[in-house]
């Protein structure tokens, strides 16, 4: 155990993870893991199921506590889960205002819903929404509080391929309006390339390879650099047989 008991913040913005340990029984899922995310940066955490990426996200969300090390995140943060986790008994608008206490909550929720192209669906029940619509409501619910950090836990994994591509466009668009640090956890290499400023491949409870992605949107779609990056990521994931 490191002797870092002081609770005073060391940075003003972004995410700071230092030597974090998380054990489940004898197994150290996170083993002295280090991670920083800058202000306004989108980091994609890539890894197979069970590599500890969701565990790390839960730690950053404050839903779980580390067994060692230090985590520093903005207090104003939001999460988008893999499932939409909408309250079936509340209409869409009330689902978005769940965490708002200001008097203009409804107005802000309407704006957030319009941003995810769901204007006019405020009065719908969650059961009336398609999978993609429900996930967009979840996105609106996360963004409505103008968080400094958005944590996305495989948010598009349950969607079909076409809807997922639309969601990627939406995320890119939302990043122009909202300035927040983002951490996206996924096992989809193409999703990582489409969205990331930086891609981190997790292995053995630590961050393995790190790739800074400086490609234009068009280059992310199709380019030599994209294919090179994709091959490197697959190699990092232990799937090198493709090249």
């Amino acid at each position: 155990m490191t002797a870092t008991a002081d609770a005073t913040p060391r940075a003003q913005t972004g995410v700071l993870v230092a030597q974090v340990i998380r054990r489940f029984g004898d197994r150290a899922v996170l083993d002295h893991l280090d991670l920083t995310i800058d202000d306004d940066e989108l980091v994609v955490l890539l890894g197979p199921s069970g590599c500890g990426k969701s565990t790390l996200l839960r730690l950053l969300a404050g839903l779980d506590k580390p067994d060692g090390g230090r985590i520093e995140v903005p207090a104003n943060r939001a999460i988008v889960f893999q499932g939409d986790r909408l309250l079936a008994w509340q209409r869409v608008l009330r689902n978005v205002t769940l965490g708002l206490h200001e008097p203009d909550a409804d107005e802000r929720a309407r704006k957030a819903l319009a941003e995810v192209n769901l204007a006019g669906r405020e009065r719908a029940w969650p059961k009336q929404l398609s999978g993609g619509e429900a996930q967009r409501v979840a996105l609106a619910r996360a963004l409505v509080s103008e968080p400094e950090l958005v944590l996305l836990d495989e948010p598009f994994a349950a969607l079909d391929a076409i809807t997922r591509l639309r969601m990627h466009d939406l995320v890119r668009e939302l990043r122009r309006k909202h300035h927040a640090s983002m951490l996206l956890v996924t096992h989809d290499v193409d999703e990582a390339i489409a969205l990331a400023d930086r891609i981190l491949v997790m292995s053995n409870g630590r961050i393995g390879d790190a790739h800074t992605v400086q490609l234009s949107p068009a280059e992310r779609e199709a380019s030599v650099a994209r294919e090179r990056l994709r091959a490197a990521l697959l190699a990092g994931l232990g799937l090198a047989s493709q090249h």
Partner: protein
Amino acid sequence: MSDISLAAKPAVLTFVPVTATPASRPRDVFLPDDSRRRSLFGTLRGRLRWPLGVYTTPGLILIVWEILAQAGVLKPTYAPAPTDILSTTVELWRDGVLGPDLAISLQRAGIGLAIGFAVGIVAGVLGGFLRTGEYVFNGVAQILNTVPLLAVLPLFVVWFGIDELTKVLLIAFGAGVPMYLNLFAAIRGVDQRLIEMARTTGAGSWRVVTRVLLPGALPGFLVGLRFSLAYSILGLVAAETVNADEGLGFLITQAQTYLQTNKVFVGLVIYSILGLVADQFVRTLERVLLRWRPSYEAV
């Protein structure tokens, strides 16, 4: 038709065109359901099949019963005809016997239900939300749940006398225990992931309770309500057989003494109508309060 003759031959190795599917394989063909468009015939047939909805079967039993009674198969002292019961009911009402009896029974049920609900809901909410509440109430409720309502009646008579208090408390007991158990289970059954989600949005404890836990527990609460109403009527019947000089139970006991089977049936019919009304009440509540729920609708 030529397809069939082609398929009959076992010459499978030769090239078979796509159109020539073997006729022996079972296939499903789905076409637009035009029963909705043939509205006149369709609705008429629907009406004829189930003219009274869920009450078709009870209605049918009544008709058969009436016929058997009129034919003399069923003796009046054994089971009087439904029309006989109806006329007895009207007669009793005109004589001014039934009205006050019904009123006093409903009053007992009302007070008993109010007490039972108050205790059951408060305990259920506390038990559901707080670990301490669970420890305080759950054991007692589980024990009480296994004690039959009719078995505590003699004890209640010893403890609370033979007056109104015993009757009201017996109904309250019948209503309170299932309400507590169902409400407790409903609150504990609310999806943990939704509570987690609500906390991450910055919703405080009050929001979590009012927007997640309580509405999420509503379906279970309504199940509890259904059981409570049914048991309260059971409690009413049991309670009114003890030293009653008015009320529906008294009417039945008295009629039984004088072998007036038709009057006994009047009491039973009214009890069953009370049960039906209670059930309809909960159904209506479910339709209004649970319209957000995607539920299975039987064909």
